[in-house]
């Protein structure tokens, strides 16, 4: 099982002839991901690393039947147009790594994608990997190990930190999902928590949040009500000064909402074990899984 991507995943790469598109297509193929097609308008008929390129997503869908679109189109070349094209062609899962998309463009794009029935992950995210089955993203594949810990994170490199630590601990990952650091993203913590809770292959869940917004608080409420699996959490930005944007557009705190302290308190109250640093995540998860297996202590 696992969630979102697996050995049946057939990837379409939008922007495949670009620098990042071509590079990551190579990396995904090397990992063993099935990449069936690419799209770059005007470059139909070419091949990139043996993958056929089409002019439109609709043509690619008709010819190769992908079930995931991986969008590497830069924001300045209209990444939201690429998202809408994938949704309109009926691709069920759209993973967009593009950063710096104007946020009001995402407001409209999100609303339209919701209506289409497709699921969007990102933008400004590292993608999704199910170790040993499929990597649809820009994460370094070699740090991952197949296993039973689900990881969901707003930050790319912090996902890698958690994955690395979990692998070093001898635990592996069922699926690792980077949901993206922007203020408006297609898939939230709660959406992914729900998938992990329903996935028999996932025995424990790592949630990595950061300052800004209230997604972590919403996730905490969901965990309290609906998640029976152990959850380990980490929140970045405890030392961030208020009112300042810390790289991710989403990570801006103002007034009394969105601080690390509030998020940590909410998740702790919901039963999650909170790590003080990424390095502690793995040990806390091991302990939580052992407790859950013995049926002792707090399962979460």
């Amino acid at each position: 099982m696992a969630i979102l991507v697996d050995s049946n995943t057939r990837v379409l790469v939008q922007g495949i002839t670009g620098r990042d598109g071509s590079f990551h297509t190579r990396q995904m193929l090397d990992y063993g991901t099935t990449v069936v097609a690419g799209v770059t308008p005007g470059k139909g008929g070419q091949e990139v690393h043996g993958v056929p390129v089409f002019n439109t997503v609709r043509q690619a869908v008709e010819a190769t039947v992908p079930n995931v679109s991986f969008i590497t189109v830069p924001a300045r070349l209209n990444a939201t147009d690429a998202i809408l094209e994938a949704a309109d062609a009926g691709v069920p899962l759209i993973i967009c790594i593009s950063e710096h998309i104007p946020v009001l463009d995402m407001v409209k794009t999100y609303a339209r994608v919701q209506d289409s029935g497709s699921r969007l992950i990102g933008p400004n995210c590292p993608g999704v990997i199910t170790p040993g089955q499929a990597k649809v993203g820009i994460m370094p594949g070699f740090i991952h190990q197949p296993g039973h810990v689900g990881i969901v994170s707003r930050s790319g490199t912090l996902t890698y930190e958690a994955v690395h630590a979990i692998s070093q601990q001898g635990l592996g990952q069922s699926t690792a999902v980077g949901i993206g650091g922007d203020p408006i993203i297609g898939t939230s913590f709660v959406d992914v928590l729900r998938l992990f809770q329903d996935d028999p292959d996932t025995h424990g869940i790592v949630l990595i949040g950061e300052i800004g917004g209230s997604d972590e608080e919403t996730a905490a409420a969901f965990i309290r009500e609906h998640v029976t699996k152990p959850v380990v959490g980490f929140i970045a930005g405890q030392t961030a000064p208020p009112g300042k944007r810390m790289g991710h557009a989403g990570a801006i705190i103002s007034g009394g909402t969105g601080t690390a302290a509030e998020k940590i308190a909410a998740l702790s109250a919901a039963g999650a074990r909170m790590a003080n640093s990424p390095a502690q995540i793995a040990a806390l998860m091991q302990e939580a899984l052992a407790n859950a297996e013995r049926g002792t202590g707090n399962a979460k």
Partner: protein
Amino acid sequence: MIKAQVHSGGRGKAGGIRLAKSPEEAERLAGQILGMDIHDRRSSGWISAATHQVLVALGVAIAREYYLGAILDRDQRGVTLMGSAEGGVEIEEVAREAPEIIKVEADPLLGLQDYEARELAFGLGLEATQVNDFVAIVKGLYRAFVGEDGSLAEINPLIQTDDGRWLALDSKMVLDDSALARHPGVENLRDPDEENATEMEARAAGLAFVKLDGDIGCMVNSAGLSMATMDAIKNAGGAPANFLDVGGGATAAQVLGLRLILTDPHVKAILFNIFGGIARRRDRAGHRRRPRPDRRHGAASWSLRLLGTNQEEGAHPAGIRASNLITAETLDEAAEKVVAASRGAAVS
């Protein structure tokens, strides 16, 4: 009215907004306000600067004060319009003390509709005779917000005078950095006196850099990891000197990032934390074009941690051969070592 013109909230409380009853008094009060530093750290971050401009405006007889704002609402994934009858106070305080805030969500695809603006007007308890004018103001604010790619647009206070006129006495807008390219004129509105010079230089190079008041420089290749690195330094008893996300590529920008850290006289040690997927062969850390550390700061210790794609190449950076380079396997270990090094301890 004499009003300090600074990028900060809480001006009234800090004495930056005063009422003068004569031209002479206006001159005297303006003289007092000019030169004052009235930046509120909570709303302006780490800027501290003297006030160098005041606005002189006609005082009016205020019958009612309102707050009106348009904000990018992450939870609703749309634009939310907010109104409150407690104008003149910061909306965060209103939310804390008396959460009488009326909110309506603008249609994400069609934009703000008249009925949505009317819901706000009636929700605030406006009289039927006031509603049409108010709706026009709400729609105008929304148009400005969307037209300029805002993430926040506030009129506070929006007042109604004794004789029924509406006036916007103060306003504030925050624009979306990612959309600046389609508003070329906006860049000219930057006020260099209200921004940190180092942050401006970094922004021009496409770097996310925030100056902090500690003594340990941080050079990290992502936003989340940079925040976690700052946290780890704090947990190890140190204080970060900056937030810096050098991103996954562009060597030239990384070089600038390093220079910004090295030219900070407070920096005693630097923690490099590079973990990535996008590093290609030519992007390895410490590539030849790395600048020589400035002699004045030659004592800075360098703590290095680098993992990821092409890890082997990255782990042997061509340029970093300094004898005071310390390596670490985990972030916590790197943080402990860099804090020790910053205090002059011998670390290996």
